[in-house]
């Protein structure tokens, strides 16, 4: 088990190396190698999750080790999907190092199995958790695309075509794919909140209990809702949209980690260190 995690760390790390080499040397085979390594890493990563599932008999999200691993797995999956659909060669420069970082953190966290309770076996919980994490992965990639957008926009605006100008794709492409990521993320987040409500009603007898995590999830949801609304009505795009995607992801990280570290609530147990 540990060794499989190490294998996936190694593969993600090599993929990162491949993507960085591609950034500097601009040979297409480097990018393809990076993608291929990430794909294999993802398969090993999947193995660890399947293993956790079989061993625990439920979705492995009962402690920080498992939750973070699952979040990383979702990012890898969504990244592969986006890459497959749009063939955006450079996004790996963002995804691969993040995955490496997440998996290294995961390997350092203790994996103490939480007391198996019934609640993990609920269909609603499984959907709630998986859908939320896919949404978060979408937002993570949107943040990465936002960063790339700002880098490219800065070079075009200041008329200094240095490092990124020829290495990054067009503004329009970055903006459009970022938008797709946010739409996917938002749809999944919405679905995740709904399943969460249903689950909360079943377990605690009420949809909403002002738990800090719930409040922050609500704030995150509202933030992205505003972003999408403004884009559709007055066309918030480009620079502003990119900045919002980055801020949104910061809020999201706080919802995911910060709330557990600084506040208490009924999500605490699942993400305890």
């Amino acid at each position, binding site marked *: 088990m540990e060794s499989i995690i190490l294998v996936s760390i190694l593969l993600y790390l090599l993929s990162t190396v491949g993507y960085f080499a591609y950034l500097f040397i*601009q040979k297409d085979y480097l990018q393809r190698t990076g993608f291929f390594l990430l794909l294999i890493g993802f398969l090993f990563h999947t193995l660890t999750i399947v293993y956790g599932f079989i061993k625990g008999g439920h979705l492995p999200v009962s402690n920080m080790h498992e939750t973070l691993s699952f979040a990383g797995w979702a990012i890898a999956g969504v990244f592969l999907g986006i890459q497959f659909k749009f063939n955006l060669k450079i996004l790996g420069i963002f995804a691969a190092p993040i995955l490496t970082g997440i998996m290294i953190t995961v390997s350092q966290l203790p994996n103490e199995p939480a007391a198996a309770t019934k609640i993990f076996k609920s269909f609603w919980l499984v959907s709630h958790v998986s859908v939320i994490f896919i949404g978060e992965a979408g937002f993570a990639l949107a943040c990465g695309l936002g960063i790339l957008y700002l880098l*490219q926009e800065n070079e*075009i*605006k200041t*008329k200094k*075509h240095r490092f990124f*100008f*020829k290495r990054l*794709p*067009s*503004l*329009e*492409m970055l903006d459009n794919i970022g938008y797709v990521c946010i739409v996917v993320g938002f749809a999944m987040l919405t679905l995740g909140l709904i399943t969460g409500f249903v689950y909360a009603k079943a377990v605690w007898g009420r949809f909403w209990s002002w738990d800090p995590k719930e409040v922050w999830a609500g704030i995150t949801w509202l933030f992205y809702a505003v972003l999408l609304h403004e884009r559709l009505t*007055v*066309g*918030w*795009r*480009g*620079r*502003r949209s990119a900045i919002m995607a980055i801020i949104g992801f910061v809020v999201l990280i706080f919802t995911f980690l910060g709330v557990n570290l600084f506040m208490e609530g009924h999500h605490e147990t699942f993400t305890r260190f």
Partner: protein
Amino acid sequence: MLDIVLLGINHNTAPIELRECIAFSEDQSKSALHSLMRKTFIKEALLFSTCNRVEVLVVTDDSARAVAETKGFIAEFNKIPLEQFEGSLYVHEGNEAVRHVFRVAASLDSMIVGEPQILGQIKEAYRTAIEEKTSGVILNRLLHRTFFVAKKIRSETGIGDRAVSISYAAVELARKIFGVLEAKKVLLIGAGEMAELAVEHLIRGKVDQVWVANRTFENGVALAKQFNGQAIGFEEIPESLKTVDIIISSTGAPDYVIRPDQVKGVIRKRKNRPLFFIDIAVPRDIDPDINRLSNSYVYDIDDLKGIIDENIEDRQKEAIKGERIVDEAVIGFREWYESLDVVPTIIALRNKMTAIAEAELKKTLQASMISEQEAKAIRKMADSLINKILHDPTQFLKRNGMHENKSFYIDSVRKLFKLDDY
């Protein structure tokens, strides 16, 4: 042994006045090739002539005489005294000639390093030589290697990657902003060679529509017709900003034609879709403050020139990698060229043996009383002796295993059997 010789002039060695005197038109080059082939020492020939250079490539068994013959030919054909151009002429032989051909084709020797036309022009010249049957084993091989090397340099270095003309730089920028240019609308304000060229490049990028605004409406209509576009009135420009994406301006107006408040007014209506202004006019047409507005980008002529200068520098850096690929290719070609020499050596060896056998047979058959049948048997024996004796040396020379020392062995064989002095 055959040698490759190249004579030429180019933009560095000769002024345009001289180059145009020596240039060969397409029709001329056919007859020129034939007159070259009629020269005693020229075995193969290729003629390559563009506005920046004239190169004559020949294969010969006596390079000094071939150079003289070729010089004479150029003078004779163009009716220009030799003294007038001899100083501008460069002569390369062997490896240097090969290197020169590779460098020219890869556009390392061009006025604008990395310009792509030259390879096509060389292919054209080669096709002519093939059609006129003036290209043989050596030039065929050399030219095929040349095309390979040029393509390799183009794909493995960034020599031709980035725009080095104003109009291309503008289009390259448009692609970095909009990605695909399809479905984008272009507004051309005023007229001017560079602006029109940029519009043509954009049309080639399949932009959706071209609008033309000109102070004189008739001129606008004429220009619009040329681009299959539509003319609009000068006063319609602010309104058109709601629709168009790329604006190319090149008027003689003393003041700004488009001001920031006009752009600000349309941003919301455009739903923040980006606007790209290309200002080729001096004095400028587009207020540079527009560049500060969100999703609006303004490039004036100096900005574009700055980009081009950077790009040219980049190309020169890439050219260094290209030179390395050329060096490798020259060595590769030389190896092939030397291997070619094995065959003449084997033939010379066999000829020598046959000559000795003939002489000895003659003596033997004259001296004694030998019947027809016996004579036949003896001749047969002599032939098979030659074959048996030459079998191993021939195999040795043809073998692939002695690559490094090939020239040494060939040299030894030639010395051992005294093949070079007749």
